[in-house]
């Protein structure tokens, strides 16, 4: 802009020049993150699992076993080249089912979190920003929900509503939003007093603008950290519902019900419940490691200053 004679830049280099600082920030972030070996492992695993979840239908060896085929002749066969993780009591390929369950878990986890975050953040933002009786009403409601241990409520709700992935998601979403509401409300109360919010008000910004443009972006990291850890727990809780027998509908596979079913064949057919259990453990571990790393990374206190 300053020198008219400068050669025309390509759009990419132009963009790069314009966002040099963002790029530096990103690079710095990656560098810092890479210092934490545990979280790098977590991230790698998460990406791997994500790829598995997305591409699974393309390469799973026995896709039919996931949608309802059975083969009684092949019941409870131990792991072999043909069936990597062996077969279950209906002769289905445990490998295919375990892999496809990753997909189910991810879908459900994402939906639960999206629903919970949407409800929780909206309510929390409203409660925190406006305060007064609005806050009282919303936060007391949140208290009621939080009074209750989530898994207990989720079990009760989905047991009452009946088995099915929709009911399970509903139950888990219902028990999940209050956490975000609390988080956002508390942060909102704090942020409301920040100078830059007063500044935004001073230049005449509307409440909506202040909430969505000024405050919420600053809460993003906190929400992301919580969400990355919660994702693992959502997967875990979905599996718990499946284990009790109120989760995903058959014949669709899910880890919890596979463990529950396979458990009857331990130790004789150990593979049936071991592999789903292992997969679930790895998934939850990956997200927890990632979340823990993110928290360390994004936590403003962790920056070392002279």
């Amino acid at each position, binding site marked *: 802009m300053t020198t008219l004679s400068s050669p025309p830049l390509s759009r990419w280099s132009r963009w790069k020049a314009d966002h040099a600082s963002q790029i530096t920030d990103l690079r710095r972030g990656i560098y810092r993150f890479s210092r934490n070996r545990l979280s790098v492992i977590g991230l790698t695993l998460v990406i791997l699992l994500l790829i598995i979840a997305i591409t699974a239908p393309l390469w799973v060896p026995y896709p039919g076993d996931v949608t*309802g*085929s*059975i083969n*009684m002749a092949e*019941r409870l066969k131990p792991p072999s080249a043909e069936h990597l993780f062996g077969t279950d*009591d*209906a002769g289905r390929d445990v490998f295919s089912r375990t892999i496809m369950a990753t997909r189910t878990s991810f879908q459900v986890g994402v939906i639960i979190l999206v629903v919970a975050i949407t409800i929780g953040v909206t309510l929390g933002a409203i409660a925190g920003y406006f305060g007064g009786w609005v806050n009282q009403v919303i936060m007391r409601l949140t208290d009621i929900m939080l009074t209750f241990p989530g898994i207990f409520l989720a079990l009760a709700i989905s*047991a*009452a509503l*009946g*088995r099915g992935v929709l009911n399970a998601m509903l139950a888990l979403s219902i028990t999940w939003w209050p956490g975000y509401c609390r988080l956002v409300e508390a942060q909102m109360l704090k942020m409301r007093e920040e100078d830059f919010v007063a500044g935004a008000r001073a230049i005449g910004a509307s409440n909506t603008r202040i909430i969505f443009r000024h405050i919420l972006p600053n809460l993003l990291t906190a929400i992301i950290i919580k969400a990355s850890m919660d994702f693992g727990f959502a997967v875990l809780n979905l599996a718990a519902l499946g284990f009790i*027998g*109120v989760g995903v*509908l*058959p*014949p669709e596979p899910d880890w919890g019900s596979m463990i529950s*079913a396979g*458990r*009857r*064949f*331990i130790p*004789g057919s150990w593979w049936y419940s071991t592999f789903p259990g292992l997969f679930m453990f790895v998934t939850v571990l990956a997200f927890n490691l990632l979340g823990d790393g993110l928290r360390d990374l994004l936590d403003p206190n962790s920056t070392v200053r002279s």
Partner: protein
Amino acid sequence: MAQNHFDPTRKMVEDFQAGRVSRREFLKFVTALTAGVATAGVPVIAAAKNVAKAPVRGTLNQVEPKILIYGGSQDIATIDPFDRTDYSIAAIIRQLYDRLFRFEGGWPQPIEPGLVQEWSSSADASEWTFKITDQARFHDGSPLTSEDVVFSYQQTLKAQKQRSSLLSGFLDVDGITAPDATTVVMKLKIPYGSFDRLLAFLEQPIASKAIALANEVDGDGGAAYLIDHEAGSGPFRIKNWQIGSVYELEAVEDYWQGWPGEGRLSGVVWQKTEDAGTRKLGLLAGNFDISDTISSTDIEEINANETTMVSVNYGLLAGYLKYNTQAGPTADPNFRKFLAYSFDRQAFADSQQGYVSIMTGPLPEGVPGYDPDLDPQYSYDPVKAKEHLDMTEFKDGGISIDFVYVSGLDFEEAGGLILLAELQKYNITLNLVPKNWPDIVGACTVPESGPHIAFIFDAFPPLADTWLIEKYSSKSWDRPTGGSYQACSFYKNETVDSLLDELRLTTDTARIDAIVQEVQTIISNDAPDMPLYVTPNITGLNKRVKGFTYYGDISVDFWRLWLDDAT
């Protein structure tokens, strides 16, 4: 900020001081307590270690030599002799109380005398006379008389709870009398030739009228008291009873019928263990002497284990796929037949390790009238299935039907999966819909809410009439309060209805046989349901348990058992 505010007045300072001191004292106290507990804890933990190392069975057996630990799948909510008959409740009540008749084992069950020594009926089977033993003694030592029998039956009829439902069709409160101390007379509302069998099946426990009335509250005849107290004359009495945690019985040494085995138990503990896996593990680990309701998948493992074995016996718990004959695709008989030919029973049997008794018709083996020659009419046959499907409007498929079963029951789910896999070939989607049992009961009330297919288990008295009427008579569902889950086919066939009406009142055995035969044929042809299989009662036993005989129930008869550690 308010919290930085310091008020220098004397009083406040003193208050702070007081607060500080008390807090500190408190902390000191807690510290001392913790230290004390910690110091005491060390030897305790050390001792616990030693106990853990010691062979458990050896040490404990010296104290309690012949106590049998029973891993039961159900809790024992009450021991109410006038109410429901959960198998667990029945099992315990059987130990605490005596009843008129006793099953002695064998299949089909022969009935044997219990309190009743002799019995007879009038020619038209409307009046029955029972002679009671004078040997029986309640646990408090008082003799059991016909008064107690009358009292017990009347209480049940008055209570109108679950236990009374079959009985009240035949007997009123006034219908039962005791002419003398050892005689009971029952006058029936409608004559019934198999009434003795019904009574044997119902196993009404005989409670002490004196004890019951002594604990009467608000004229309830002791009903409330008996919910968690016993007043019986059976081989065992309660030793320790805490609902939800402890169910412990001890033997009555001088039981009036004596003890049949070479030894006897000194007591029984019912260890409620709802989870099948845990029940199995408990048995394998030697924690339980008997575990009931073992999954067929565990049989091999239990038999392979050195100290344990399995007993598999078929009873009267029969599984049916019930089609809704009034609504949806299943209203078309051809579609029902298509379903029947499509279901691979052998695959299902395989899925249950072969531990199933495939049914050949509406009645299971063990019910009088059962016809072993009646071949399964609808064994797996894709060609015939296709023929029948082509006769329906759904020959190109494209429909989806619901398969409702009880959530968490893997064998029902397996049945669904087998059908699902088969129907996929005809472009028909089968939705597996696991539901809670009360949901199914609710849905089975009227055809409108009835599921297309429901996997339902029935357990019935070994009486053909009751068995058939409850399932196939339209009167069982076409009424203001709707039907019960047994009638979930909503079957309506005028001929069958009139035949079943006749069956109930007939005492002529030849006629009964004829009707049963005819009804079975008609029903088979209409295919309102698919009689699938009789499920086995699989009981896991420690080999030191002796004297086990199967007598038709999930549970076992403790009276006959003894423990022999020598083996």
